[in-house]
């Protein structure tokens, strides 16, 4: 597995951030890492039961939680949104 930087936008944030992940990270892990960095810093912390999803910028479809970055075929600095689905 390898490092991969991505451009990430957590729902509510004023702008994109750049974070480095592991290509083996699942979408759930990705979301968790972004929340860890941005929630409680620029965006209000989410309630513990909040369901956070990942989607490609411009897409309406959530990517499966268990899908890895590698399998999702993200390129370096892919733009992804982390949003609250429920």
């Amino acid at each position, binding site marked *: 597995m390898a490092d991969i930087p991505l451009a990430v*936008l957590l729902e*509510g*944030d004023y702008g994109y951030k750049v974070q480095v992940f592991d290509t083996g990270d699942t979408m759930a892990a990705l979301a968790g890492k972004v929340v860890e960095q*941005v929630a409680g*810093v620029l965006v209000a912390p989410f309630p513990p039961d909040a369901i956070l999803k990942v989607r490609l910028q411009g897409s309406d479809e959530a990517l499966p939680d268990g899908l890895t970055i590698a399998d999702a075929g993200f390129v370096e600095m892919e733009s992804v949104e982390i949003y609250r689905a429920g």
Partner: protein
Amino acid sequence: MALLDMHEWYDLTRDTNWTPAYVAEEELFPPEFSDPFGISVEQWETFDEPYKVCYRDYVETQRDKDIGAYSVKSALARADFFKNASPHWKALLALHFSPIGFAEFHSASAFARMTRFSRAPGMRNMATFGTLDEMRHGQIQMYFAYEFIKHDRVFDWAHKSSKTENWIIISLRHALDDIEHTRDAISAAIMTNFAFEQGFTNLQFIGLSADAAKAGDHTFATMLQSIQTDEARHAQIGTPLISIMIENGRKAEAQQLVDIGFWRIWKQFSALSGISMDYYTPLEFREHSLKEFMHEWVVDQFARNIKALGLDLPWYWDYFLHDIETFHHSQQIGVYVYRATEWWRPIACVSPAERDWLEEKYPGWNDTYGKCWDVVIDNIRQGRFEKTVPEVPPLICNMCGLEVTGIAGVGRQANGRRWNATDFHLDHEGRRYHFCSEPCKWVFELEPARYQGHRSIIDRVLDGTVPPGPDGFYEYMGQSFEERGVCGYDYQWIDGYDAPRAAAAE
């Protein structure tokens, strides 16, 4: 007096074209520097500067202007005012003076390129005045900044910033080098004199001077106005060029030059003037909001000027009107939370009273940008200062060099707007480029070779150009430990500037 009136001999000073015989014409005037549009010399000779001045009058007028600005009385007033100025005003002065000295001085070279390469004699002569003017602007502003340095080392950046790789300086250099320094004389003049100087400088120099006068900083206000009188003269170079372009079937080219120049400079002024006017200017001294200044000084005037010339509003005008109300608010959040990356002491300027003003001027502010600030404020209230600084960097636009931002906040707001930061990315020759907006991306696509080899500060972090480690980033940007920004109020602002910070409820 038996001297001739200027108008009796002025035309001879612009009867100075000749046909070269000892070198080829294109060696003397390479098209890529003089005129890539193929317009005849006879046409260029119709260039008529609206505002005529001769050398003799120039040196007399300019000498008089500087007498007041450099007087001992003025210096004492400046020193006095600065000592008693609030962190707000000091931050505003630091933001203004840091980049402007070298940028103005550098513009002297842009005008000199016009003197050397223009086929229009009147333009060559006016550009000589432009060269002299910009040396004046660089020197007077550096002089003012230098007087502050004994009180505050932040003003060292008025001198040193030009040589640094600080991300804000990279952003400014990229924009100014693009429109002023790396094109033919005609294009540079249309972009610099018409789009930039005629379009925007009133904002920073007149708009800001109104705030300064209100704040009682009269020497700063006077200096700004004095500079602007020069600007009005040499900014006139752009208008006759556009007329000549249109008359010679080059309207589309002229339009595109204006569209590029206007957008590139808007981004810079949005950050510089937007943060100065809507945040750093103390509340009680704010004449108008950025939006109000923009509409009065830029939107209405520029729209009139451009239509009077026979051009259209830039294609992105509606987006621009939206950007006036949004971009700088997000940039201000970033400038504050990433304050260590700036060399001055950034301030938040979102105390309760200031938030009320922002809401009044930008309805919906509290439900959008205010939501990010609420998190920052809560962290301060809890004493969790380190949580007011993100540990991950922002995405930077490969064109304007500023953060890729949008409207903050969750869900759809009452005014119909919603969270909408978008990375306008583009893949070109195996590399992904990121842009904050369609117009920034559009500029890139017009001439990729011009931009594609440049690396943003984030590109340099990712490719290892910036040394790793906690200090590598700052050292790369020219900032020693003492030069990393801290909150200018030491967090004592969340409940107002007179009220000490209330502790968190148990």
